[in-house]
């Protein structure tokens, strides 16, 4: 395509470019249409129906089902468990990642070995991490209960206690996320100019003051980004629940996605209820994404 002296005007180029653009966008657009937009609409639609006793025919219920599910104790409970799970995993995860990053930031011989160790949990999938912790927490093998002097670790173990199961699942999640938070915070620290620390030192600020008045403010965009990403992934968590607790004991660890899975594919086969819960999850993620975009906008100002 030549653009010489007789170069076409922008409007003409737009008209000439569009068939190629359509061709290039088509694969992605088709995939999104079939696997994102259509199922999203269908999920909203499925929420209007109820499956009959045999889990076969769909019966029209209408928007009433949305009202019913939104008012139900089950939804409120699973939303609360998911929220508690993110509260237990996000601040601790970010703090742990930041602590490791600060620890491994300054030059020291052999520091790369420690950096590799600290980022190593990135290599663990949710199944690997959960099962490694299943072994640690198992009261009959008793690795943790013999290393640490806490009674709650004895039979039935943390995972078997309604008040502690979510804490245990959160612990495995914080450990699994450690590699990600460490890498994220390390990248953040590297973008803080050394001169700021020098200036603070000249002003007589000690290590503690420098951390709170230089490091934390300079990292605030990264911390916010990490907080939103971890919160969204917290609300999407499923694998650790499926492997470690099956939502139990009772319904103590029945997070939102577990509840959706259980309603849709469990014994009760309440597809419509699961669909409404999925729509609720969508709204939650939508709100969190909106926060994320504002955060990303802010990042530009911080540079």
């Amino acid at each position, binding site marked *: 395509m030549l653009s010489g002296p007789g170069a076409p005007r922008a409007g003409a180029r737009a008209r000439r470019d569009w068939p190629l653009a359509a061709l290039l966008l088509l694969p*992605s657009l088709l995939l999104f249409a079939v696997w994102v937009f259509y199922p999203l609409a269908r999920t909203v639609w499925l929420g209007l129906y109820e499956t009959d006793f045999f889990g076969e025919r769909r019966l029209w219920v209408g928007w009433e089902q949305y009202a019913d599910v939104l008012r139900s104790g089950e939804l409120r409970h699973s939303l609360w468990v998911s929220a508690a799970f993110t509260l237990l995993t996000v601040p601790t995860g970010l703090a742990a990642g930041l602590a490791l990053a600060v620890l491994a930031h300054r030059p020291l011989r052999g520091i790369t070995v420690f950096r590799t160790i600290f980022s190593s949990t990135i290599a663990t999938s949710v199944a690997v991490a959960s099962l490694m912790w299943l072994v640690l927490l198992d009261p009959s093998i008793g690795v943790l209960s013999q290393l640490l002097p806490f009674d709650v670790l004895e039979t039935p173990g943390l995972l078997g206690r309604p008040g502690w199961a979510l804490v245990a699942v959160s612990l495995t999640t914080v450990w699994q996320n450690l590699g990600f938070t460490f890498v994220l915070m390390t990248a953040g620290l590297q973008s803080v100019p050394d001169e700021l620390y020098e200036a603070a030192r000249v002003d007589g600020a000690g290590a503690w003051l420098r951390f709170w008045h230089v490091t934390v403010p300079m990292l605030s965009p990264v911390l916010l980004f990490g907080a939103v990403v971890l919160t969204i992934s917290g609300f999407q968590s499923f694998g650790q629940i499926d492997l470690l607790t099956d939502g139990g004991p009772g319904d103590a660890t029945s997070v939102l996605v577990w509840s959706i899975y259980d309603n849709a594919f469990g014994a009760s086969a309440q597809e419509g209820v699961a669909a409404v819960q999925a729509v609720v999850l969508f709204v939650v993620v939508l709100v969190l994404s909106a926060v994320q975009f504002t955060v990303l906008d802010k990042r530009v100002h911080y540079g």
Partner: protein
Amino acid sequence: MDEPRGARRVARYAVLVVVAVVVLTPVYVSLVGALKPGARVLDYPRSLVPDSLTLETVRRAWSSGDLDRTMLNSALVAGAITVGQLVTSVLAAYAFAFLRFPWKPFWFGLFVSTLMVPTEVTVLANHGTVSSLGWLDSYQALVVPFLATALGTFLLRQVFLALPGDLRDAAAMDGLGHGRFLLQVAVPLARPMLGALALFSFLSAWNQYLWPLLVTNDDEHRTVQLGLRSLASSNLDELNLVMAGTIIAALPIFVVLLAFQRQLVRGLTAGAVKG
């Protein structure tokens, strides 16, 4: 910043070692469990230092969990998803960066909007689609829904837009059409981002849990995450097999990450830190 000396240096090493031990404990315990003879597993933790090593447990976990088959499946599925995502997102990103067409902001917004729909929201309806296509227990079901990525399109578009503005014009002057410009100029210049994306796509696909659980039920198509799940549920009285399984499943990914650390950091922090 200088390296610290004397007592402060020793103190820093001490703290680093303690923290490293805490971080590695879950891995170490599983590793020891995997290498000890089966019957000895209940000795924990009186013998966290193994007194006799054997590969017998690893061998039994390997066959009982069908780990070679499931890891091969995961590699095939994740590989296909990675290649597919790179192709679709390079094509779309090129259109958004270098072509003029009507309603561009709308189409771009449509792409970005898919980022706000997590797979957990659509699994129920997508399970219905897959089952009515007759795709349950098939590789298509594991691969096809994930062949497009708005994140990849977004990041590659950024890379393309950052290229010098008159690069395309100069290429056009040299008689380079869009096809050759894409393959000979744009893609090579985007190679670092492509590497990061490939790693990120592969890991995400390898780690998938809920979707494979819903659409596959047979041994033939089971991925490694589900292989571990069934290994755990059928061997709750023999956790040493589970320990061996987790170590085997984590090892190849750990090696991949060691080899591609730089791409990994770029991929994980894309969007968070200017790089």
